[in-house]
């Protein structure tokens, strides 16, 4: 029986950090599998990678909020004689606004994607990742280090990703699997449009390009780092958050989210107290 070819499975690869990671993995000689919802964007990326003289990545257009998607990715890989050596869980989105006023179904779909699908894909391919001494790169955010009023569910999902990845890092190291969690600050991608954040309001000192952040993530993964926070500014933010009492972090986060939100989704609390 011929050996299965090791591939790097990259979710959310149609744009932003995911697309940048796909290019970096391909440039470093990994065969890629691109998972995302937008087939035309994925195919365009696959074509441009093929044009640079690398293997054309396999495109799997699937929605990861669906519960059966990880199983189907496994089937697609098996059917084509591939198995995962690297898993990059990059797909995810955020929503800005009061949790009580945002659409509930959209918020729960965020859990299905940012938490459930990430957990599923991290666990599902452990055997083949160990066989190829590969790795898992989970994309979280600096949001993971603080509870975020105005982005309550998003920050909570990302804190899940950090805790889960840090534990896996220690647990899977003896198997020869590298597990890295990438915690970027603001990056100019479609993320902010989806989340309803005005990109003009992003702090410029903390904002980096998707390509640079992806390169930091890739290098960190290959070196077996547990956590990668790209940029000195973001590293400082992380340290400062750890040293500040939660009370102040919460009210400061609340105010800053209100400033950044594009739409006025911030109705005043009722004034007539009983």
């Amino acid at each position, binding site marked *: 029986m011929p050996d299965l070819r090791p591939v790097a499975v990259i979710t959310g690869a149609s744009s932003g950090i995911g697309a940048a990671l796909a290019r970096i993995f391909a440039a470093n000689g990994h065969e890629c599998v691109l998972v995302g919802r937008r087939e035309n964007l994925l195919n365009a990326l696959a074509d441009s990678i093929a044009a640079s003289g690398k293997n054309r990545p396999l495109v799997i257009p699937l929605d990861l909020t669906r519960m059966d998607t990880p199983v189907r990715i496994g089937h697609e890989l098996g059917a084509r004689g591939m198995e995962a050596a690297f898993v990059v869980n990059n797909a995810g989105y955020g929503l800005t606004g009061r949790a009580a006023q945002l659409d*509930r179904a959209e918020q729960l779909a965020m859990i299905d994607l940012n938490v459930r699908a990430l957990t599923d894909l991290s666990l599902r391919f452990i055997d083949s990742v160990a066989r190829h001494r590969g790795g898992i790169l989970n994309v979280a955010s600096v949001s993971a280090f603080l509870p975020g009023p105005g982005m309550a569910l998003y920050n909570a999902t990302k804190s899940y990703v950090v805790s889960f990845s840090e*534990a896996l890092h220690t647990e899977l190291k003896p198997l020869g699997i590298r597990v890295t969690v990438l915690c970027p600050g603001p990056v100019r991608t479609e993320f902010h449009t989806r989340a309803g954040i005005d990109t003009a309001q992003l702090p410029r000192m903390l904002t980096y390009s998707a390509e640079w952040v992806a390169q930091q993530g890739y290098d960190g993964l290959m070196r077996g780092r547990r956590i990668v926070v790209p940029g000195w500014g973001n590293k400082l933010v992380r340290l400062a958050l750890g040293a500040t009492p939660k009370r102040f972090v919460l009210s400061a986060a609340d105010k800053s989210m209100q400033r950044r939100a594009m739409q006025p989704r911030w109705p005043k609390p009722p004034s007539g107290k009983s």
Partner: protein
Amino acid sequence: MTTIVSDRPRSMRTNELRPVALITGASSGIGAALARRFAGEGHALALVSLPDPKLAALAEEIAASTGKQPLTLEVDLTYRDAGVRIAAALAGAGFETQFIVNCAGFGLVGPAAVLDCGEQLAMVDVNVRALADLCLRFSDSLIRRRGGILNVASLSAFLPAPEMAVYNASKKFVLSFSEALHQELGPHGVRVTVLCSGPVPTRFQTRAGIRANLPRLLACSPQFVARAAYDGLMAGKRVVVPGVGNKGLRLMLRVIPPGVLLPGSQAAMRFSMRPPRKRAVPAFRRGPA
């Protein structure tokens, strides 16, 4: 001015919904202790659990002691429509939610690669998804009734734990989400409290596969924890960590570097799966009070 005289309860005359405290995972452990506590303080109850004869027994006991029959719902919270079914059952019984206690949850100890993948995802469904669903679904009536949300996390939320990776991460989610909700809903008069208890001897350990005796310095009885949680919720506290030992541990966890913390928690998890050498009775120092 005329007065309408009727022997029917006021709520039935006016179609007004009655406030209720919704408690998930109520059939045993901390959930049952919280149900007794809420009942003792005069709240009407809706108790949710997996099908379990203990649920009916608890409802009978509460009905006998308070005179109010709790509504019991046997719902599996791993189902995606669990929230809809609970909401429909409450509306059908003429209730609207004033307090939500998200106590249902479970943990699993063991290497993530060895544990069943489906069971670990079910943990995400209950500990994360169902909890968020219930918090968001009833926010309108919570604001109207100026009620509260009590989310049961764990001291595990403060550290990542190899060999209990998904559980600790799910509790980290609960902590972060609840703290943000505390800030968001506070101005609307809704109290949001997250309970981060240390080890409590309940059915949790059996389900998780924990066999070692619980550390006596940290272990608290369900009654003690439920009382601290209820008082904390009513006082509008953000985080409640019951017991002096657990409070101290939480502070220590903040200063231990991850390079020490991660192997340390892994060793603790491995130790917890070993059977105890001798039986320690009682399992906790802080008894019912």
